[in-house]
C-alpha cells in the first residue's frame, strides 16, 4: 500500500508531463489523484487503528527493498503514530490546493505535475525509515518548491526569493547529510536504517562526536522548520509564492523539519538530546516570542501569517526540548503529543490562512492591510471564514490549535517551568496580532477605494478552505480522533529519549 500512496502522485505527474493532456483534464487529474491519496490515507488510518500489519518494531505497512546495499541503505518506509497524521495531513492539504487551483490559468499542466511531484516527496519523507531515503525526499522537496516559487510566483523578486529559499534550505540539507554520515560511521554494523539505528543508538558515551552530529542534524532541521535565527528564507519565499505554493510550503514542508526532530534527532541521539535539551527549549521560546512580535509589526498580511508560523513552530521546539528534561513522564508525554498535534493543526490552519491571503491578492492586488478595511460589508463570507481561521490560529478552544498549545504549555511547565511560563505570553501576542489584522482588513470603515471592490469568496475557494477549518474544529472538539494515534507514539518517543 505504501509505495502506491507515495508514488501515485509522481506517476500521474509523469503522465501529465509526457502526454499532451489538455489543461482542464490535467487539473482534474491532479484533484482526482489528491482525493485518491486522501482515500488511501483514510484506509491506512482505519487499518492502523485496527492494528493491521503492525510489525514487531512498531511500524505498520512496512516496505523494505534493497537499494544501495553497499552502504547499508534500503528503500525502507513504514507508518507509525508520528507519521500517520502527517501523511493524512499531506493528502488533505494537497487536495485543498488542487481545489483552490482548479481555475489555474498559467501553465496549468506543469503546475499540476509539480504539485503532484511535491506530494510524492512529502509523503515519501514522512514514511521514510532510512536516512538516505529521508534525505533524498528532503532535497527533492526543495527542488520542487523552488520551481513553484520561481515559475508561478508573483512580484518582481520571485526568482531572487526562490533562489534564497533554495540555497538556504539546501545548505541546511548538506548539514543534515553530514549528520547522517556521522550516524552511519558511528553505527556498528554501518547502516542508514532508522529503525536499526533507533534500536541501538550509536554515539553513546562521552566524546565530541555525538554533540557534533546532533548539531549538524539540528542545524539542517532548524533551517527547514524554521526557527529563529534561521528563518530568513521564509518571509520572502511566502510573499512571492503562489497561494497554493505557500499553503504547501507552510502546511507541509515546514513539518519536514519538526518531523525530523521526532523521527531522527530524538530517538537516534537520545543522550545528546537530553544533554542539550535546554538549547532547543531556548530556541523554541525565542521563536515563539520573536515570531509573534515581528508578526505584530507587519502590514503585509501574508508576511504576518508567515511570521506566525515561526511562532507556532517555536512551541513545537519548546515541547520537544522539554521532553528531554527530567520530569514526570506523563507531563512530557503530554508535551510531545501537543507538539505532534501542533504539526497537524498548523498545517490545516496556516494552509487555510495562506489560501485566504491568495484570495485577498486575487481581489485587491495587494497584501497591504492598511489599504483595505471594512471588507465585511462587501465580502461577509470572506470576513467570516478569515475570522474563524484567525481564531483557530490564535489557539481558541474548539479548534485544533488549542489542543496543541494547551498540551504543549501544560506539559512543558513541569519540566521547564520558566520557559513555558514565558512562552505562554505568546498566546496573548498572537491574540492581539490576529485581532488587529482582522480589524484592519475586514472591520471599521473602508480605508481606500480598493476595499469597496473586493468580491466575496467563490464556491471553489470555499470548498478549498472550509474543509481545512472543519478539520481543525474536528480535532478541537473531538481530540481523540487524532490522539488515539499520537499518544502511544508520544509514549514510545518519551521512552526512547529516556534511554
Amino acid at each position, binding site marked *: 500500500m505504501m509505495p502506491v500512496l507515495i508514488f501515485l502522485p509522481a506517476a500521474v505527474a509523469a503522465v501529465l508531463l509526457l502526454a499532451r493532456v489538455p489543461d482542464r483534464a490535467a487539473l482534474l487529474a491532479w484533484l482526482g489523484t489528491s482525493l485518491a491519496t486522501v482515500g488511501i490515507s483514510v484506509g491506512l488510518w482505519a487499518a492502523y487503528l485496527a492494528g493491521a500489519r503492525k510489525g514487531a518494531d512498531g511500524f505498520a505497512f512496512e516496505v523494505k527493498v534493497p537499494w544501495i546495499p553497499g552502504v547499508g541503505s534500503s528503500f525502507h518506509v513504514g507508518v507509525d503514530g508520528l507519521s500517520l497524521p502527517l501523511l493524512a495531513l499531506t493528502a488533505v492539504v494537497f487536495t485543498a490546493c488542487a481545489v483552490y487551483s482548479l481555475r489555474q490559468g498559467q501553465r496549468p499542466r506543469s503546475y499540476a505535475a509539480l504539485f503532484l511531484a511535491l506530494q510524492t516527496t512529502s509523503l515519501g519523507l514522512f514514511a521514510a525509515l532510512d536516512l538516505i531515503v529521508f534525505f533524498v525526499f528532503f532535497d527533492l522537496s526543495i527542488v520542487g518548491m523552488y520551481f513553484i516559487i520561481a515559475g508561478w510566483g508573483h512580484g518582481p523578486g520571485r526568482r*531572487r526569493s526562490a533562489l*534564497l529559499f533554495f*540555497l*538556504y534550505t539546501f545548505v541546511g540539507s548538506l548539514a543534515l547529510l553530514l549528520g547522517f554520515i556521522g550516524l552511519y560511521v558511528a553505527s556498528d554494523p554501518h547502516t542508514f536504517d532508522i529503525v536499526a539505528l533507533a534500536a541501538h543508538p550509536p554515539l553513546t558515551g562521552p566524546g565530541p562526536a555525538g554533540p557534533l552530529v546532533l548539531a549538524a542534524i539540528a542545524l539542517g532541521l532548524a533551517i527547514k522548520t524554521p526557527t529563529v*535565527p534561521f528563518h*530568513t*528564507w521564509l*518571509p*520572502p519565499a511566502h510573499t512571492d509564492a503562489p497561494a497554493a505554493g505557500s499553503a504547501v510550503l507552510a502546511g507541509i514542508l515546514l513539518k519536514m523539519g519538526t518531523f525530523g526532530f521526532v523521527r531522527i534527532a530524538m530517538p537516534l541521539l537520545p543522550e545528546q538530546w537530553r544533554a542539550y535539551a535546554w538549547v532547543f527549549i531556548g530556541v523554541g521560546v525565542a521563536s515563539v516570542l*520573536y515570531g509573534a*512580535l*515581528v508578526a*505584530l*509589526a*507587519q502590514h503585509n498580511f501574508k508576511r504576518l501569517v508567515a511570521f506566525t508560523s515561526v511562532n507556532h513552530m517555536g512551541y513545537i521546539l519548546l515541547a520537544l526540548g522539554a521532553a528531554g528534561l527530567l*520530569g*514526570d*513522564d*506523563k*507531563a512530557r508525554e*503530554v508535551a510531545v*503529543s501537543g507538539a505532534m498535534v501542533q504539526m497537524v493543526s498548523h498545517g490545516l490552519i496556516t494552509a487555510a490562512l495562506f489560501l485566504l491571503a491568495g484570495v485577498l491578492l486575487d481581489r485587491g492586488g495587494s497584501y497591504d492591510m492598511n489599504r483595505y478595511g*471594512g471588507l465585511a*460589508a462587501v465580502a*461577509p*463570507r470572506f470576513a467570516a471564514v478569515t475570522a474563524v481561521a484567525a*481564531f483557530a490560529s490564535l489557539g*481558541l*478552544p*474548539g479548534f485544533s490549535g*488549542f489542543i496543541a498549545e*494547551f*498540551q504543549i*504549555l*501544560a*506539559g*512543558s*511547565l*513541569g*519540566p521547564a*517551568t520558566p520557559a*513555558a*511560563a514565558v512562552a*505562554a*505570553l505568546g*498566546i*496573548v*501576542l498572537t*491574540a*492581539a496580532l490576529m*485581532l*488587529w489584522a482582522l*480589524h484592519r482588513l*475586514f*472591520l*471599521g*470603515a473602508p480605508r481606500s477605494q480598493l476595499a469597496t471592490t473586493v468580491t466575496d469568496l467563490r464556491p471553489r475557494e470555499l470548498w478549498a478552505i472550509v474543509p481545512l477549518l472543519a478539520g481543525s474544529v474536528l480535532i478541537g472538539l473531538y*481530540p*481523540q480522533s487524532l*490522539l488515539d494515534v499520537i499518544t502511544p507514539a508520544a509514549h514510545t518517543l518519551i521512552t526512547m529519549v529516556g534511554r
Partner: protein
Amino acid sequence: MTGVLWALVLVPAAAGGALLAAAFGPARFAARVERAAATSGVAVAAGVLALAVAAAVNGPRVAVPFLAGEPLALAVDGLSAVVVVTVAAVALLVLTFSASSVRSGRARFTGLMLVFVAAVLVTATATTLLGLLMAWEAMGATSYALIAFGWREARAVASGTTAFVVTRAGDVGLYLAAGAALAVAGAAAPGLSLAGLAALPAPWLHIAAAGILAAAFGKAAQLPFSFWLSRAMDGPSPVSALLHSAAMVAMGGYLLLRAHPLLVAAGWAAPAAAWGGAVTALVLGAVALAQTDLKQLLAASTSAQLGFVVLAAGIAGPGAVGAGLAQLVGHAATKALLFLAAGAWLTALGTKAIPALRGAGRTYPWVGVPFTVGALALAGIPPLALWATKDSVLAAAREQSLGLYVVGSAAAVLAAGYSGKALALIWRRRPAHPAGADTGAVTGYDTEEQGTRVVPWLSRIPLIPLAIGAGVLGVLVLPAASRALGLDPPAVPDVGELAVSAVLALAVTAAALCWPSRLPAPGCAASWLHLERAADAGIVRPTLCLARVLARADDALEVGVFGMGRAARRAAAAAAAVDRVGVTGAVRAVAAGVRRAGDAARLSQTGQLHHYYAQAVVGLAVAVLIVWLAV
C-alpha cells in the same frame, strides 16, 4: 439524568452555531433566518432555563475522555445549580429584551449570545481545569464578537480587542495552573480536577493559586484589569446586561468561590483575593461616583460589586462562600435590570449621558420604576437584595479582619452615593423646552444614535421579573434558603450591623438624591484611574515598539542574507580576477623569470678558458671566505 446536563450545554451551543452558520449562508435562506432569529433565540433560551432548573434539581454529573487521559467533566452541585439557573434566567430575559432592541444582524447577535450562554454554562459546571479553560476562553472570544457587534465602528472593534486581549492575559494563568496540576508525578497526582488543586504539593500549589487568581481577576474586571470593562461599554446594552452582570464578569468571582479551598490551602492567596476584592470595591466605587455616563457608572459599579464576591472568596472562615454566592446572584439580577433600563433609554432617547437622561424616569415610568428598584438595591437599601447579601459578606469578613470590614463598609457607602446620583437625575423634572425643540442640540438626546422615543412592551416586560429578583433575592442569606438549596449557609450579620448599614445607606442615598451635583468626582476617578492609559504606555506601546524594532532588525537580517549572496558573487568575481591576473600572471611571471634566469646562466658559458679560470678563482675565494667565517 446525564442527558439533561448534556442538553443544557449542547442545545444553546448547537442552536447558536446553526444561527451563525445560517447568517452567512445563501442570501434567501439568510433572510428567512434573520426574521426568525429573535423568536427562536427566546425559544431556545426558554428551553435552556427549563433544562437548567431540571439540572439544578437533579444534580447530574457527566464525563467524557478528552485529552491527556483527562476527562471533560461537568457536574451540577449546590454552587453551580444556583449559578446555572441565574444565568439561564437572565439570558432568557435579555434575549426577550433584544428581540425588540436589536434591529439588524439579529441572526448573528442571537447566535453569538447563545454560544456565549453555552460557554458560561460549561464554565459554571466544569469540574476540571480543561473544560473550565475551554469555556472560559470561548466566553472571551464571543464577548469580543458581541462587544464589536457594530463592527463598522472602529472604536467598538478596538474595545472588543481590548477586552479580549486583557482578559486573555489573565487566562494565561489558567494554562499555568493546568501545567502545575500536570507537573505532579506519581499516583498522588490530582490530574486536572478543580477540586484536587488544593492538594497539590508546594511549588505547584502556589503556581496554581496565582494562575487562578490572575484569570479570575482578569475576567471579573478587578484591579488592575478593570479598564477593559469600561471599553466593553461600547457594545450593545443587552450584551452588557448579560455579559457584565450575570455571566462573564460574574464567572471571575464564581471561579474564586469554586477555588476557595485552593486559595485557603495556598495561604497567601486567600488574603490576596480578599484585599484585592475589597480595594476594587472601594476604588471602583469612587470611579462609579465620578462617571457622567450611565453605562460607565454601571460598569464601574459592576467591578466594585464583584469586589465583594472576590472578597468573600478570600475569607477562610465559614459562611464566606455562601455569602459570596448570594452577593453574586443578587448582583446579577440587579445589574442586568439596570443595564437593560439604560439600554431601553439609549434606544428611545439616543443617549446614555446622565445629565441628558434627566427626567427619563418620568417620561418612561415603565422603565423608571424598575430602574429605581434596581438602583435602591444597589445602594444597599433594606430590604432589597444587595443590602442583605453584602452585609453577609461583610459579616464574614469581620470575623477575619477588621480592616477588610472597614474597607468593605466604605465601599458600601460609595455604592449608596452613586446609586443615589443616578436616581436623582432620572427623576428630576426636565427644564421646559419650547415646543418642537426635541432636537439633540437642545435636549442632549440622539448623541449616540437616533432615538426612537418609544420603549416597546417587549423591552418593558423583562424588567419586571428582574426588579422582583433585585427586591427579594436577599432571602438567599437566610439559613432556611441555603438549607433548601443544599449550600454552605452564608454568614449571618447581627442585627446591629444590619441596622447600621441600613441607616448609612439610607442617609447617603438621601444626600445623593438631594445634592447629586455636589458629589465628589475627582478627575482620575472619572477616567478610571488612567488605567487604560497606563496599560497603553506601560505595556502596549513598549510591546509595539519592540515589535517594530525587531521587525526592522529582521528586515536588516534579510538584506544581510541577500547581501551574502551578492557578496558570494562578488567574491567569485574577485577570485576570477585574482585567477586571471594573479595566478595566471604569477605562473607566467615564474616562467619568464626562469627563462631569464636560464638566459643569465647561459652568459657564463662563453667557451673561453680564461673566463672559466677566473670563475673558478672567484668560486674558490668565496668558499675560503665562508670556511674562514665559519671557523
